[in-house]
């Protein structure tokens, strides 16, 4: 075999190795499926985690596999066509991974320290912040998420909403701190069409330590 073809083959080996990646797997919940009752039912948590989140991960893995094939073939059109599925399923995986940790069975948690100070400073009061986030999230048309995010450029907290599974940081540049899922699968079995009741109740199971940790590293 010529020197040139050996070199060419070694490059192919290296480039294939760099394109091999791990498959994403469903993260474990930090608590049991019934831990958030009565705010979020066991039935919802089980379906939400083991079916919906799992499906996003499966479909993400499939999309990334297809992406790898398109990259190997140099199929730019194929790469472009995959973006929607990657945003949707990748966003779904990111969002839900944050969500499970944003929630906690400890209903006595409250915002503290720097987070509390900044929420009060920027929104007037904790109640104002909660009301604004509840109102904006209730108002999402169709499926989506309400977010408390950190704007690194302007150095302040913002409440924004995203449609479908659009990931906050990739879509808006904000660092996600607290997300509330208002896809109907997140609440319908328990709250039916009364999204506002779900949003009022969910404040009792927010893991403020997790939100603070995200804020301090944002």
């Amino acid at each position, binding site marked *: 075999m010529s020197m040139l073809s050996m070199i060419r083959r070694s490059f192919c080996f290296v480039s294939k190795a760099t394109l091999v990646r791990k498959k994403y797997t469903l993260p474990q919940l930090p608590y049991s499926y019934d831990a958030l009752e009565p705010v979020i039912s066991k039935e919802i948590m089980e379906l939400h985690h083991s079916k919906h989140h799992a499906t996003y991960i499966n479909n993400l893995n499939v999309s990334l596999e297809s992406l790898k094939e398109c990259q190997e073939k140099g199929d730019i059109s194929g790469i472009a066509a995959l973006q929607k599925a990657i945003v949707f399923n990748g966003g779904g995986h990111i969002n839900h991974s944050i969500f499970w940790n944003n929630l906690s069975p400890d209903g006595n948690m409250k915002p503290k320290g720097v987070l509390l100070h900044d929420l009060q400073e920027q929104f007037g009061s904790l109640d104002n912040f909660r009301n604004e986030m509840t109102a904006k999230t209730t108002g999402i048309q169709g499926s989506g998420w309400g977010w408390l995010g950190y704007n690194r450029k302007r150095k302040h907290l913002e409440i924004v909403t995203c449609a479908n599974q659009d990931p906050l940081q990739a879509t808006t540049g904000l660092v996600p701190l607290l997300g509330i899922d208002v896809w109907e699968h997140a609440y*319908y079995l328990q709250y039916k069409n009364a999204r506002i009741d779900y949003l009022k109740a969910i404040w009792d199971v927010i893991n403020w330590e997790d939100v603070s940790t995200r804020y301090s590293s944002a």
Partner: protein
Amino acid sequence: MFIIFLLSFVQNELAFAPIVEILEQVSRVPRQWRQPLINNGGGYVNHIIYWSTMCPAPSSATPTGSLLVDIENTFGSFSVFRERFTEEAGTLFGSGYVWLCEEAEGEGGGGLVITTTPNQDSPLSQGLHPLLVLDVWEHAYYLKHKNLRPNYVSEWWKVVCWEEVDALRKFWKSLTLSRILNEKLFEIKKHTQT
């Protein structure tokens, strides 16, 4: 639930037009009311069509007559149409609807198309006449089917009322015809007044 707001402060005859007409010309609605109108007006019309095109015991599992012929001519066969429609329903991201529509052009009507709309958007706003619709918002199926949307879709085919789909198609045709007639009458009037 879906309330139509009377846009009485708008200097626009659209404010008093039927909701179908408002949705057809939704880009003319002033920006501050456009999205709420799409959400609520669209939701109102979409659900009317959804309820109307279902019945507990359809007399036929497939369309008949000219609708069947046109579906076969457009999609190859009824089962290909059904497969494509089902695929759209299975792959729609988020909330929305899957539609069989007819293009709203001319006196003979345009072609048949399968299309989807997100949230409560109406195909009327895209120059289409809706004939059949499937609601794939999670609230339409979650209590019974949970996350298994494909099960809901395959059950839904059993309650599609093809007679009503046909009646709706005839409705759009006669609406188009009456609009054309009105336009022609208007032209004649204008001509005789000058």
